[in-house]
């Protein structure tokens, strides 16, 4: 699945200062019945976002018109739990292109990278600064610069570097995915397979 190229993203953010946000919260299992990748954003954080009668919960951040933007900022250990890529799809489909946290669960992070959502891991102190800035002023913007691997709190100019493998950076910058790469080395894979005992 090809996706948009990622270079520099400047945006306001949606703050979610909860730790261990798991994939069952991001997209509950009962919404995994589709056979196509459409409409998952509608059910992003479904049970935190809506009451059982489908009315919006006014105290949840996605229902607060003050907060919007293409960057979701979550608490430590974001995306723990299941391997469902639907969680990353829901984040993307809702309109986020970047998720910032002080720690990500492995599979969720990988899934994001595979579909063109950039997970940016920052220090716990920087995460606190972002939350403070956004809660003080919802219009506070972050700039995520993939080529430079920096994240900047524009209001104060405070900045951190973030890690990403050169391979994934190249993919995201160009909108490539791993299948493109793997198709190109199919012969090498078949030669390797022929040497395996089983």
């Amino acid at each position, binding site marked *: *699945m090809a996706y948009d190229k990622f270079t520099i993203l400047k945006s306001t953010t949606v703050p979610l*200062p*909860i*730790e*261990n946000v*798991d994939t*069952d*919260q991001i997209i*509950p*299992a*009962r919404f*995994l*019945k*589709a*056979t*196509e*990748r459409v409409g998952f954003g509608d059910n992003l954080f479904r*049970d935190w976002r809506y009451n*059982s009668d489908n009315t919006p919960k006014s105290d949840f951040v996605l229902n607060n018109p003050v907060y919007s933007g293409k960057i979701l900022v979550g*608490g*430590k*250990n974001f995306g*723990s*739990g*299941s*391997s*469902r*890529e*639907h969680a*990353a799809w829901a984040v993307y489909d809702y309109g986020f292109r970047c998720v910032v946290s002080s*720690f*990500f*669960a*492995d*599979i969720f992070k*990988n*899934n994001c990278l*595979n*579909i063109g959502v950039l997970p940016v891991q920052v220090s716990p102190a920087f995460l606190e600064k972002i939350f403070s800035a956004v809660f003080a002023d919802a219009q506070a913007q972050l700039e995520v610069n993939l080529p430079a691997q920096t994240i900047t709190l524009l209001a104060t100019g405070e900045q951190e570097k973030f890690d990403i*493998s*050169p*391979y*994934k950076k190249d993919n995201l910058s160009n909108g490539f*995915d*791993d*299948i493109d*790469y*793997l*198709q190109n*080395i*199919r012969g*090498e*894979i*078949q030669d*390797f*397979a022929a040497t*395996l*005992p*089983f």
Partner: protein
Amino acid sequence: MSKTLFDKVWDSHVVRKIEGGPDVLFIDRHLIHEVTSPVAFLGLKNRDIKVLYPERTFATADHNTPTINQHLPVSDPLSANQLKALENNANAYGIRHWGLGHQKNGIVHVIGPEHGITQPGATIVCGDSHTSTHGAFGAIAFGIGTSEVEMVLASQCIMQPKAKKMRISVTGSLSKGVTPKDVALFIISKLTTSGATGYFVEYAGEVFEKMSMEGRMTVCNLSIEMGARGGMIAPDQTTFDYIKDREFTPKGDAWDKAMAYWQTLKTDADATFDKEFTFDGSSIEPMITYGTNPGMGIGISNHIPDASEVEGGVTTYEKSLGYMGFHEGESMIGKKVDYVFVGSCTNGRIEDFRAFTSLIKGKKKAENVTVWLVPGSHIVEEQIKKEGLLDVLTEAGFTLRQPGCSACLAMNDDKVPAGKYAVSTSNRNFEGRQGPGARTMLASPLVAAAAAITGVVTDPRTLI
């Protein structure tokens, strides 16, 4: 150079190393199910790519299947559509498909080992995080996303950096009433739900050496709940005895040759790990969770910790206890139970039903409790009948359902109602995991049995 078990299996499957990037890892066995595969097949179709090695992929329906009346058409049209999509895709690409009602059907991580698809030294992936289960056989096994399912179908490879290495040793022996599930919940409570993120875990020590294959599967299954990519245990005679003569394991000369290789699959004496933990097995008691992630577990006789005693923020902790309707300092013993669920890829095997039955034998189901007993596969279901366990269960007022993931993730109709409490042998107690508003307490089949006959959280050691 000295190598760990993980190094040996990983390194032997690297097709290509990318400078500053991931390894291209060859995958021996690929398991698929109806929920995480349809979009992958759609991707193949859109790119006009064939499945490279269809014989290396196995399909089963489990996540989204009913656990009663499986002979009838599936009533939910969305679920029926997903099951049909799996069948159509499997047929279109020449993939083995054990759909609903097939004699070999069951939960993907139960049937893999049952049929010998799971073997030592193999790389195994599936679009499901509990794929770590298969590590019990000395395989590298882990969950992947749908984009990666598409990669494996297209190329039999995925692209991932090699994980760091962690060894968790549990020494000594376990006390009466303490099961492999308790060992796993104990370890997760110590490491927390993110304590092993970025690592591949090897479990070692006497407790695992003495453990049955099914027990090892339960432990490896839960590796993901502390964030680990996967968990594995070196294969030994217990492993070889379990897999011998199963449908997909080697036979004759091929078996001897495989055995010669499998016996080399252990961590070299001087190999090193990035992180090591050692626990004393005799200090573990039956465990139960009180919060909304699997790291929030305590010995069943303990009290719910104060926020100041746990790692992490107070707000998150209070939100979690608030959801559960519990308070700091309370005892878990005597908490009301409305539902009991025995099943899932964690605890849906025959030994789990033997354990449950051993405790309820001669007693009656508590009237206030709804109990769902869901075997992990048709083979487990048949075994329950063959061993006479069903008679004991029926006598005590229990019924047996048909195989599937069921209330573990509540994609089907097996949902715990909002606000109700469930003691569950499954793997996740996240908010809403077993149904919107459902409150889950994770525990072993013995703790589940004790709750099923007393109607409250009960220490199973008082009933043995």
